[in-house]
């Protein structure tokens, strides 16, 4: 326990130093606008990937409707700041909360399904949310909302991301997180051990939706415009790809995956015709040669650098911040 505490504070200090360095580079203007918005995007994507990892990687529930929750958060917070002058941070949190409510509503009926059927159902729900947005004039229909104040700064995004990582990681390490892992490993056995599987699945789903909603709100306030089309199932796939490329079941992996995909996307922007082709070839090759993802399912720990090959599946004692 002491060890975990020490690692936790070490992680916090390292990330605060990282925050400071980037902040200085932004204020001194060494980072141009492209790099700055790339860092904001990395933050949003890390939040999305870490929250999806809780559902897919830790609880083992195959969900591919994350963009739906993201859009609920994005639209809610954008409307709150645009029409009601709600303070920015409050609007983001409100967006997350509404997304969480959707998480409960969608999770309750669908989480009885498992495997591929759950995947299809969540995909369907994500698309239904998109189509509802598309047909609602109040939120701008197909043209979406524009003129959203660009209030997301590096400071805001950094602290939201840090809080996401810390909270989700603490959840994973708690009794409840262990219950979720038990469900992933063997649902029937977990049930037999007295774990209320439905309850924990819904909890994981709701927490995932909460943070996805907040990430959506932050991304809406980074760019000026949101349209229903930016939250289609391709976006859900993109988040899933981050989680799987990084290593399903590992928070550190989700972070690495999110950073990797964002960098890939940003730097391939110079080759627009080749961007998606290179991206898809990277995906296929990654899955063929390293199907477990970059970090496998092991957590990130400094100890591993000393001990080679100490791979424990499902090790989540990570201080991945």
């Amino acid at each position, binding site marked *: 326990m002491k060890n975990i505490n020490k690692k936790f504070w070490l992680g916090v200090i390292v990330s605060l130093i990282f925050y400071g360095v980037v902040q200085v580079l932004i204020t001194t203007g060494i980072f141009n606008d492209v790099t700055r918005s790339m860092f904001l995007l990395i933050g949003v994507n890390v939040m999305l990937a870490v929250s999806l990892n809780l559902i897919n990687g830790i609880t083992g529930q195959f969900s591919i409707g994350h963009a739906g929750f993201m859009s609920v958060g994005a639209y809610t917070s954008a409307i709150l700041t645009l029409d009601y002058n709600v303070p920015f941070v409050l609007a983001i949190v409100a967006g997350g909360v509404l997304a969480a409510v959707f998480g409960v509503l969608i999770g309750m009926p669908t989480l009885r399904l498992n495997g591929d059927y759950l995947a299809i159902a969540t995909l369907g729900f994500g698309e239904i949310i998109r*189509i509802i947005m598309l047909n609602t004039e109040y939120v701008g229909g197909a043209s979406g909302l524009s003129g959203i104040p660009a209030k997301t700064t590096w400071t805001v995004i950094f602290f939201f991301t840090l809080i996401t990582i810390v909270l989700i990681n603490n959840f994973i390490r708690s009794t409840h997180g262990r219950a979720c892992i038990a469900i992933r490993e063997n649902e029937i056995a977990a049930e037999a051990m007295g774990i209320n599987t439905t309850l924990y699945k819904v909890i994981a789903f709701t927490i995932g939706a909460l943070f996805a909603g907040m990430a959506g709100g932050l991304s809406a306030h980074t760019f000026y415009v949101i349209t229903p089309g930016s939250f289609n199932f391709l976006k859900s796939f993109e988040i899933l790809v981050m989680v799987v490329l990084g290593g399903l079941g590992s928070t550190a992996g989700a972070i690495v995956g999110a950073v990797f995909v964002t960098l890939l996307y940003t730097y391939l922007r110079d080759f627009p015709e080749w961007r*998606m082709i290179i991206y898809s070839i990277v*995906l296929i090759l990654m899955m063929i040669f390293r199907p477990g993802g970059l970090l496998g399912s092991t957590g990130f720990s400094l100890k591993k650098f000393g001990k080679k090959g100490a791979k424990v599946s499902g090790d989540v004692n990570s201080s991945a911040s």
Partner: protein
Amino acid sequence: MEYFIQQLINGISVGSIYALIALGYTMVYGIIKLINFAHGDVFMVGSFIGLFSANFLSDAGLPPVLVLIVSLVFSMTVSALLGITIERFAYKPLRKSTRIAALITAIGVSFLLEYTGVLVLGPQAQGFPDILVKKQFNLFGTDIQVESNQVMILLVTIILMILLQYIVRYTKTGKAMRAVSFDMEAARLMGINVDRTISATFAIGSALAAAAGVIFGMTYNSVDPLMGVMPGLKAFVAAVLGGIGSIPGALVGGLLLGTVETEISSLGYSSWRDGVAFAVLILILIFKPSGLFGKNVREKV
């Protein structure tokens, strides 16, 4: 009433296209439990090959019916080869790894086909030639109209279905396919060449998708490299609706989805069409998780 039947006929022709694509999904899922997301893009490739060969053959002066048959067969053959290639290079190395890794690969292949298409053909839509002259008939002297195209779609679908039933029921490959989908390991022990059977499944599924692509092009007269995304997803919904892994299920699911969609559109809610399709899917999944024709598999403890 007549209006309803009119929409039903339109729905059946849309549904036939879904059904043909859905068959590929269902067969592949039945045999290796993979949601082959690239299937919708094989449909797109098939459509383009149909477009090119139809243009070429029309210029060469072949009679229209022959143009249709030859470009249909040519497109199906090339797509079958494409399906086998995809399986060989992208899915086969992953046969032993997790399903999620295979799924991500399928998404990768899908992007690869789509954006190679954009690179080679350009992102804009291209016109599909009218291979057959479109005519309209009145059904049994009523006001219900049937287009010659719709008759052609139904005809092609029925012929392909009969062919498929024959292959699956009576040929050696078909028997092997059923055996492998029932229990891959046991089939291997019985001396069935599992790899070849899986290749055959991909070939047949892709050929059916290509046929759907050609008739899709003839119906809507417009094809583009990203056209496979939505029909692919819908066909997948159709496959799940009917019970994934079941061939009659795919047919019924496709027709059902096509009919529901057309009825919704005809009531003036065409922008809600896709949403209703997914809502139907979720309702079916909640109340009958294995689809209309699916077998309920008990979980092993």
